[in-house]
């Protein structure tokens, strides 16, 4: 069976005329090479971050507030640009993309935020369908795929509800449905449980794990130690602008200090 047909099969949304390289399938999905980023001169947020994420991984990115978790993700979907270094997504340097190529990068990345970033005046259906409308897919296909995405996040039959009247947990589910409806290669979650109560946070994490089981790579940025404790997975700790990789997960002691496993 070809790697293109397996459970981790991924067909990126490419620009018209662009060719998909088979070699890209064998590369890590994400590579950070000596990435530097600062907002103010003299105080860089990221100081030479090196990080490799393989296809199909679930990685927690954690660290204290201001450590650069969100910056790391923003650099990935080109909301920010690196000062130095390279970020390779499927072998392409994200930092060197031209402006008109950025939408095509974003079509291959699903992003979920702490504040959901939904349009309150739109219905649940419209908020999810927008990710497919930009691809100019036929309406019937959009309807089917949005229905499937809503079913996956447990909001089947809620398509007509206005997003603005949903509870926080439901809004985050809509945001997740929007992120997965285009079947992206990579899901970035930037503190997606930050506005939710602990039980709801664990439910949402479970949803991301289900998505991951389907073969999608998930990068989950959080400072919620409970989540790190309940799901021991690969953790990348960002501190003082550097990335520390902890493949077997992390333990946090009673003084809120990260404790690496023996």
């Amino acid at each position, binding site marked *: 069976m070809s790697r293109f047909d397996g459970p981790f099969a991924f067909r990126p949304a490419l620009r018209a005329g662009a060719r998909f390289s088979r070699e890209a399938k064998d590369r890590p999905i994400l590579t950070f090479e000596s990435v530097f980023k600062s907002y103010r001169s003299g105080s860089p947020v990221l100081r030479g971050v090196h990080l490799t994420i393989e296809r199909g991984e679930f990685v927690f990115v954690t660290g204290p507030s201001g450590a650069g978790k969100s910056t790391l993700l923003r650099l990935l979907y080109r909301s920010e640009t690196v000062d130095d270094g390279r970020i390779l997504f499927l072998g392409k340097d994200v930092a060197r993309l031209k402006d008109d190529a950025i939408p095509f990068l974003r079509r291959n990345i699903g992003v979920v935020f702490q504040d959901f970033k939904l349009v309150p*005046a*739109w219905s649940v259906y419209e908020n999810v369908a927008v990710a497919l409308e930009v691809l100019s897919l036929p309406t019937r296909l959009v309807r089917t795929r949005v229905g499937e995405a809503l079913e996956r996040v447990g909001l089947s039959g809620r398509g007509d509800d206005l997003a603005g009247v949903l509870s926080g947990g439901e809004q985050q589910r809509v945001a997740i449905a929007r992120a997965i409806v*285009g079947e992206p290669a990579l899901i970035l979650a930037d503190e997606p449980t930050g506005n939710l109560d602990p039980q709801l946070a664990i439910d949402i994490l479970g949803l991301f794990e289900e998505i991951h089981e389907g073969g999608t790579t998930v990068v989950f940025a959080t400072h919620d130690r409970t989540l790190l404790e309940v799901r021991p997975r690969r953790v990348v700790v960002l501190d003082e602008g550097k990335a520390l990789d902890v493949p077997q997960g992390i333990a946090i002691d009673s003084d809120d200090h990260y404790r690496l496993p023996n």
Partner: protein
Amino acid sequence: MISLSTTLRARRGMMREWRLHALSIFSLAVAFVCFGASLLVVTNLRALEDRWAHAGRASVYLKDNAAADDIESVKSALLRVGGVKQVRYVSGQQARLDFGASQQERATALASLPAEAFPSTLEVEVVPEMTDTELVDMATKLQKLPSVEDVETYQAWTERLSRLIRGGVAASALLALVVLFAVLAVVGSTIRLALQRRRTEVEVLKLVGATDRFVKGPYILEGSVQGAMGALGATGLLALLFMIIRARLDGEFVNLLGLQPQFLPWYLVTALVCSGALLGALAAMGTLRRLVLV
């Protein structure tokens, strides 16, 4: 090309912010009414000029002491001139009676006018194909005759009209500039406000990989619709005013000017609406160029 999605999103945006768009359309309509009104005046002045330039007539004013034989010889000489269709003698008394019939309410005032106010004339009707030069030539020859006081070919009147039209065209051009700036300002402000209100929408669209064209499309369409509806609304308002005025003063216009006032021709209305749509789209594009960033 405008996609279905662009149209749907533009319609959705306009429906959700209908008050903002209605206000914008109203403001544009006011600007277009001024421009449309000037076009209407120019159109009717042109019709008037055309009517009088090809009036096909001249009035030969006779001296008070002109003898009947002299008048008859002038009349028969005129009838021999090529292009002259008919010559009619109108005595001073007849002129007074004719004028009195059309101004019955001023009968007393008319009765007090001196006899010189209504000189005897020869009303000459010429074929419309007769050129201005031929008419002037004929008038010059007539003026040399001893029984002729003056000859009116109505050329001075059409020249004055031409000057008026040139003034009207200049005023219209000035108003077109005003309309241009009004459209740029109104549509620009509306799009800026709409963008501000739909900031999250734009952010979401960018996030899911919408191209700049996809994001801007509905706003450009909205600007275009605003411009077109503003122009169309102005035309409708102008048509209503025109009908009211014509219903009240139609007879007066015919008596005074010799023709019925006409509304803007269909091609001018179409041009007005199309230019509104184009200007609206351009104004929206200009605003978006500065505001929507990747």
